[in-house]
Each structure stands twice: as structure tokens, then as C-alpha cells.
């Protein structure tokens, strides 16, 4: 590949031992984590114990209702993506590039839905927009002939999933808008272009790579999401891939082949998305350098539109954060659910909170979740930091494979990951089944792709010369990595750490299949409250969880600001 590296074992000989150990360790973790679930899935789907077979595919694709299931899946993913990308990009633009009032607070508040676990979001929306007991419908009931919102429909599912995915788009697109050199837009102004023309011809094309990435991530996220299809889709009769997989796994006998066939189809769709993404990206590849550096973005004065912007942001916040949290708050103070009235609100009690806070299982799950979140985030970020270093800083042949492997779990839905790990580790000599460590393996595997993106982005921010200066000062590879690279990478890695921590705490679809008694995590306890119809306890736990996580995020941001200021 590179003429300088063709000298036999030259590449390896130039790797000092310490570096070799660390790099090999990290790559080993990545390869192991990625290959297990995917290998299992392929084997289980195409191997029936005697030989290769396509029988499971035939079964999967001859089942009734298949056409509508595929159509529903694609429409659901498409709709949720449109909602999330449109809202998220608009919000990001308002926050990053305009003088809309109260930006700092509103930006932070807009990230709240990221903190609300998917299961709480789904529960909240059932109580908000169910056609019969939905709070929103009870408001509109007084108006004759008013519309009825029915969450148990495909559009309802799209909206609930889309609103929940919006903050991630907001984060991705804010970074993209901030990375655009303001001079590029000023040059357009000086060329005589006005607002809309600048947006259409300069700004949007420049953030196109980020926009494509956001679209891809949202589309895959929606395709693989479990909570909304299971809790809203099944009652509404809207079946998608993930709910089919869930059903295939809970019948008797559980149909792993069928689940596998659906999963592989889902992965196939994801891969099609990935290929489309790279094809479209290739056209924008050549100006990727644009986003390498941060700038003080050009803040546009949008005049009276500021208030329209503020209105839009407030409406988003009200619908995506305030309403769900309010209904949870209300639920948490009631013994059983009924449409809120003044009397019911006056009868509020904190009994549910008392129950939740004294329940041994809940407290144990809190400890487990916190421990797993911290460990998963730490492992993911350390391993991917080393891998990202190898990818961006060495000429090791086959380094593309590392990125590919680390990103591979991206296409494996959480449920499938759960089945695969359950299957493998029940039989593995490694005694992890029946402990919380199997959940740790699941989280590390699932969130490795996200950690990888954060780490590579962070690595690009640190100039190669800083590291070379350390080598010239006589530092060994490990010293320079630990004392120069890590501190400089900390702000970027910390952001990734926080993200992995949050999503690990929220994770449900693998956990539900992998937990054992005594090793429950918070999301599992919340799900079992739902199963048991204990809405009050569920909501109380949810409210406490959201408050706790919000506090943690604020604390981290404060720390992050200090980290940033030190540079």
C-alpha cells in the first residue's frame, strides 16, 4: 500500500513494545466485541445444524403481513428521520447561527429529551396522545369537531420517535454549523447574495456531509428502535422489523432462525443506507477539510424573525420535553391513572416516590446502572481512543478494517445483540452470564461505533506536531500518549464518555434479554413496572431518573467548560 512500509515486518518492528501491547489490546477488544454478535447471527440464520440453508429466509418472507411490515418499517424510519432531521437542523441553525434570544438556556433545555429514556418517552406519549385517555385529546375534547390525536398509528409513532431523536441531530448539526468558516458566508454577502440565497447555495451545501450523516444515523436508529414499536406499535397493530423479531423470540419454540432472517434483512437495509451515504458523501469528500477547524461562527441578525425563532424553539420544548415530563410528574403522584382534573391534582401524593425509594430492587438496579454506565463509557472511550490513534496517526495496513469492525455493531439491533450475547455467553467458559458483566459486554459492543466517531473527531483536533514534539523531547510512545495526547483529547473524549454513559443508562432492548435476578438495571425495572401496570411507580422512578441525569449532565458540562477553558 505504502512503499515505505513494504519492508516485510517493518511496520511491526517500528512499533515499540508498550505501544504494541496497548494497540493490540484495544484492537483485540474491538474485534472480539464486533465479531461475536455478527458471526452468531450469520451462523444462526444460514446454518440449520446440518448445512447451509435459506429456509429461514423463505419462512420469514412467506409469512403473512410481510409486505405491510416492510412498508411500515421503512415509513416509520423515514417519518421519524424527517421529523428529527428537520427539527434538529432548524434548532441547530437557530442556536449556532442566529441571535435568537436566550440561546444558552434553550440549547441546554433542548437536549433534555436525550436524557429521557425511550421507554419513558413512549409511556408519556401513550398518556398524552392516546385517543381515549390522552391528556391532549381531553383538552381538545371541549372543541366540537376538533382533531383527535391517535398515538397508536404510524404517524403517531413517527412523531414520538422523531421528537426523541431530535436532540441528537441538534448536537450533530450544531457542531457542523459551528465548523463552517464564517468567511465563506461573508464572501457570499460581499458577492451580493442575500439571506435565502446564502443559505441555499453556501451554508446548506457546506454542512451537507454532516446532514447526510445525521440522516443516516436517524434512519438506522429508528429502524432499530425497540420501545416505540413494542409499546405503541403492537397495540396499534403497526408491526415493524423489531417488533417481529421480539415476537419471533417470545413464541414457543422461539424462532431464532426467523428472528435472524428479519435481523439480517434489517442489517441489509442499514447497509444499503450506509452505501448510499458513502456514495453521496463522495461528492462532498473533497471539502471535508472545511470542518476540521473551529471558528467563531458568524451570528446573523434575523431581526423580527428572532421572535418567530423563539416561538419555534419554545413550541418544540413544550412538546418534546415539558409535556412528557409534566404527564410523568402527574402520573407519579397518582395511585392509578385517570385523565387529569383539578381534583386529582389536588389529591397528589408522594406515596409512589416513597415506594420507589425504599424498594431494594430499585436501589440495586440504580447501583448496577450507575456502575455499568461508568464502566461502559470508560472502556468504550479508552479502547476507541487508541483505535482512533491507530487510524489517524499510523500507516498500519488494514487500519480501515479497525474502523469497519468498530462500526459494525451499528447495524445490529439491540434485541439481536441481546439474543446473540445470551446465546454465546451461556455457553462460553467465561463466567459472565448471570452477572452484570454480560450487560457490560452488551453496552460496550453496542456503543463502540458511537465512541469511535467521538474519538476520531477528537483526534483530528490535535495536531500531529504536538505529539511529534513530545517524541523529540525524548518521551516514549506511552508517555506521549498519556501525557500529551490524552489531556488534549480530554474535551472531545469527555463528550463521548457522557454520551455513552447516557445511552447505557437508557439501554433497554439488550438488557431485557440479558439481565438475571439480582442484576436488574434501571431500564429493566422501569419496563417491569410497565408490565405490571404500575404507572405511578414507573413515573416516580422516571422523574427521579431524569432529575438525576440532568444534574449529572449539568455537572459534566461545568467540568467540560473548565476543561475547554484550559486550552
Amino acid at each position, binding site marked *: 500500500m505504502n512503499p515505505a512500509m513494504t519492508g516485510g515486518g517493518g511496520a511491526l518492528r517500528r512499533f515499540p513494545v508498550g505501544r504494541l501491547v496497548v494497540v493490540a489490546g484495544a484492537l483485540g477488544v474491538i474485534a472480539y466485541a464486533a465479531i461475536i454478535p455478527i458471526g452468531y447471527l450469520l451462523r444462526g440464520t444460514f446454518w440449520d445444524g446440518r448445512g447451509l440453508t435459506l429456509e429461514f429466509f423463505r419462512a420469514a418472507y412467506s409469512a403473512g403481513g410481510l409486505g405491510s411490515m416492510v412498508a411500515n418499517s421503512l415509513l416509520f424510519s423515514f417519518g421519524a428521520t424527517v421529523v428529527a432531521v428537520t427539527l434538529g437542523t432548524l434548532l441547530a441553525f437557530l442556536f449556532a447561527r442566529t441571535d435568537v434570544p436566550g440561546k444558552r438556556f434553550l440549547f441546554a433545555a433542548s437536549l433534555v429529551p436525550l436524557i429521557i429514556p425511550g421507554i419513558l418517552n413512549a409511556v408519556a406519549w401513550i398518556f398524552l396522545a392516546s385517543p381515549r385517555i390522552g391528556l391532549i385529546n381531553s383538552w381538545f375534547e371541549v372543541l366540537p369537531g376538533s382533531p383527535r390525536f391517535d398515538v397508536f398509528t404510524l404517524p403517531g409513532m413517527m412523531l414520538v420517535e422523531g421528537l426523541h431523536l431530535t436532540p441528537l441531530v441538534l448536537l450533530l448539526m450544531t457542531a457542523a454549523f459551528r465548523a463552517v468558516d464564517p468567511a465563506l458566508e461573508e464572501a457570499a454577502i*460581499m*458577492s451580493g447574495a442575500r439571506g435565502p440565497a446564502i443559505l441555499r447555495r453556501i451554508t446548506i451545501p457546506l454542512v451537507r456531509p454532516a446532514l447526510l450523516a445525521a440522516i443516516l444515523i436517524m434512519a438506522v436508529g429508528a429502524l432499530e428502535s425497540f420501545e416505540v414499536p413494542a409499546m405503541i406499535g403492537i397495540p396499534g397493530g403497526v408491526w415493524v422489523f423489531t417488533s417481529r423479531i421480539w415476537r419471533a423470540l417470545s413464541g414457543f419454540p422461539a424462532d431464532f432462525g426467523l428472528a435472524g432472517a428479519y435481523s439480517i434483512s434489517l442489517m441489509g437495509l442499514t447497509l444499503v443506507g450506509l452505501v448510499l451515504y458513502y456514495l453521496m458523501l463522495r461528492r462532498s469528500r473533497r471539502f471535508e477539510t472545511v470542518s476540521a477547524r473551529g471558528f467563531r461562527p458568524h451570528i446573523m441578525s434575523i431581526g423580527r424573525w428572532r421572535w418567530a425563532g423563539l416561538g419555534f424553539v419554545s413550541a418544540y420544548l413544550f412538546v418534546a420535553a415539558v409535556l412528557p415530563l409534566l404527564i410523568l410528574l402527574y402520573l407519579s403522584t397518582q395511585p392509578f391513572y385517570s385523565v387529569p382534573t383539578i381534583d386529582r391534582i389536588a389529591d397528589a401524593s408522594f406515596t409512589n416516590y416513597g415506594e420507589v425509594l425504599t424498594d431494594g430492587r430499585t436501589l440495586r438496579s440504580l447501583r448496577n446502572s450507575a456502575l455499568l454506565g461508568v464502566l461502559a463509557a470508560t472502556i468504550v472511550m479508552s479502547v476507541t481512543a487508541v483505535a482512533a490513534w491507530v487510524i489517524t496517526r499510523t500507516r498500519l495496513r488494514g487500519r480501515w478494517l479497525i474502523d469497519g469492525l468498530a462500526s459494525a455493531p451499528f447495524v445490529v439491533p439491540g434485541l439481536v445483540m441481546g439474543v446473540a450475547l445470551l446465546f454465546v455467553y451461556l455457553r462460553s467458559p467465561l463466567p459472565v452470564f448471570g452477572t452484570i458483566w454480560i450487560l457490560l459486554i452488551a453496552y460496550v459492543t453496542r456503543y463502540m461505533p458511537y465512541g469511535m466517531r467521538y474519538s476520531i473527531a477528537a483526534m483530528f483536533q490535535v495536531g500531529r506536531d504536538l505529539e511529534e514534539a513530545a517524541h523529540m523531547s525524548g518521551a516514549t510512545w506511552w508517555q506521549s500518549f498519556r501525557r500529551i495526547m490524552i489531556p488534549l483529547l480530554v474535551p472531545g473524549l469527555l463528550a463521548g464518555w457522557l454520551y455513552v454513559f447516557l445511552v447505557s443508562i437508557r439501554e433497554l432492548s439488550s438488557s431485557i434479554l440479558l439481565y438475571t435476578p439480582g442484576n436488574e438495571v434501571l431500564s429493566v425495572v422501569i419496563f417491569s413496572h410497565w408490565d405490571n401496570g404500575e404507572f405511578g411507580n414507573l413515573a416516580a422512578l422516571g422523574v427521579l431518573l431524569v432529575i438525576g441525569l440532568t444534574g449529572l449532565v449539568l455537572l459534566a458540562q461545568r467540568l467540560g467548560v473548565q476543561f475547554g477553558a484550559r486550552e
Partner: protein
Amino acid sequence: MTFEGVAPVLQVTDLAKSFSDDGKDVRAVDSVSFEVPAGTLLTLLGPSGCGKTTTMRCIAGLERPDAGSIHIDGRPVFDSGGRINVSPQDRGIGMVFQSYAIWPHMNVYQNTAFPLEVAQRRNRLGKREIRQRVHDVLERVQLDGLARRPATDLSGGQQQRLALARALVMEPRILLLDEPLSNLDANLREDMRLELKQLQRRLGLTAVYVTHDQAEALAMSKYVAVMNNGRIEQLGRPREIYERPATAFVAEFIGTANFLPGHIVSREPGGAYLVSCAAGRLFIPAAADLAVGEAVTVAVRHEQITIEKGAAPGAAWTGVVAARAYLGEAIDHVVDVGGTRVRVRGNPAISIPPGTPVTLTIAEHGATLLPAEEG
């Protein structure tokens, strides 16, 4: 000030602009006034943070000044009193950015044609005319033949030319150039400097040029305004600025000089003074009205002093070479003159080892009198 009776295309009057930084108000531009006559190039020269770029961005309309007025062809485009603020698109100004701001998602042709394509409908040219104009301007900057090339495939010098072509294609009344050469390497920079100057002359462009490079300023401009702390310290022809710096800042910033503290010994006929400084006495012409005994600073440029071996008696300064440095096209000697260090730049053929006694001669009009430095 007015320049030789030619009507100014650009008039900037009492311009002021503050930024708040960490709650503190920083006066980035402080009552700046100047005019640029048609077909001339004026340079705003100064160190980073002196306000030159902010001044330029105010002219462009990218920043809104706090006070003052800006007129183009006698019509106000900004007037804090009359509450006029014409949008940048309507000022008829072309601009070349420091980073070039070449749009990476467009090719050379698309970059250049953009200003014509987004023109207001009533002024918009037909497709054919646009193609012709783009072709002409690309030819003028020697980029013809690269029209279909992706902009990001261009070299630094080519990108610079493309930025220029894009600014020129709409035939602006005024061209603003924000450190356009600072991203080029040294050799290319000198070539481009010359090219840019020729182009400006040939097209008769009225231009404002911002730079921190004094050589660039002196070589390119008809007029130079040296800025410091948001104010113009001195405005004049390059030669004037170089030879008769009005302040110590200008003298120090433009070229390299020795600053020697001294005082007036006597006033001589013909508007000159006899000044005594640490290194010795000398006659210096000056227009200012100074009293005998008043403290002053004497500025003597390094290349205005000649060095000879041996101690010659008389008015000349004598000393001993303390150090020397070979610079290729010149050689610097640091000479100890009665305890004061004087730097001398001369022909590299004359190299004198340290410890050798020498005589220094200051060229006629080689020294400038400046107000005494504070402290």
C-alpha cells in the same frame, strides 16, 4: 485630509467601534478618518489587534460601527447621525478575504460566476454575458483554462487569484483586500505583490488593503495609514511614512531603527536642531517647535548609518564592534558607543570582527526627532 484635489471615492469620517470582551468595552476603532481617491490603493497597516480589519469590515458593512460615517462616491452608506446603514450587498464593494473563502463545493467557474448569478433581478446579466464576463476576468487573473477545476484542487496562489477574480467580476466601485498575501509562501508572496499592484494600476481600481507586513504596505500602496490601538498614528505616502515617522510607534513598526534618548542642545538656522544623545551629538532637521533642553528621542534607521574601521576624530561617533550577524543580503554590526548599543546595517562586503574600533557616520536626513518616550 484631501489628496491632490481628486474627488475621493471612499470617505471614512470619525469611525468608532467597540466590542465588549468579558464585560469590558474594548475600543477597536477610535475616531478613524481617511479618504481614498479614485484609482488609488490605501493600506491600513498595523500589528494584529490594531483595528485595521475591523475598520475594513465596517467599510464592507460586515460590522456595524458605533459612530461616524462612511461615504462612497459622496453618498452615505453609513451615517450614525442620519441612521443610514446600507446593507453590504448594496454598497458595490468587492472583497478578498484572508482565507480566500473559496467555496469548496463549487468549481472555479461557479465560484467566479456566483456574484453575477445572485445579482438583483433588474441588474442581472444573461447567461451568455455572465459566461463572457467570467471568462474575461479569469483570463485577467490567468486562471483561464482552469474553469472546470474543483476550487479545492487549486494551489495557494491560484486560490488567491480566484478570490480576486470573484471580487472583480462584479466590477465593484471599491475593492477591499484583507491580508490577501499572508497565506502564501515568501517567494510567491513577492510575485503576487507585484502582480496585484500591476492589476490595480491597469484597471484603475480604488482599493483598501489591510496588512501587518510593512514591506508589503510600502511596495503596494499609494497611501499608508499606520494604525495602533484603534487609531491612525500617521497617514501619508510610503516614503513619507518611512523617512519621517511621526511617532515612535510608526518608526519602530516601519522598518528597524535605533532609538536613542537625548535632549535639544540648540536651535540651528534652517529648521534644524543640534541634539545630544548617549552616542554623541548630531544635527537633525525638524519642523516641530522645541525648546532648548527639552528631552527627545532620536530615531536612526539601521541602514542610515555607515561603519568604517578605525577611530576617526571629529563629529562622527566612535565605538567598538560588540557583535555581528550575517543576513545574506546585508550584515548587521552592533556597536558599543560609549555604553550605548547602536545597530548598523550595511553591505555584506564590509565585515568587521568584534573588538575592532570603528567610526559611525549618519546619513544626511538619516535621523528623525521624536517626542521623548515616556517612563
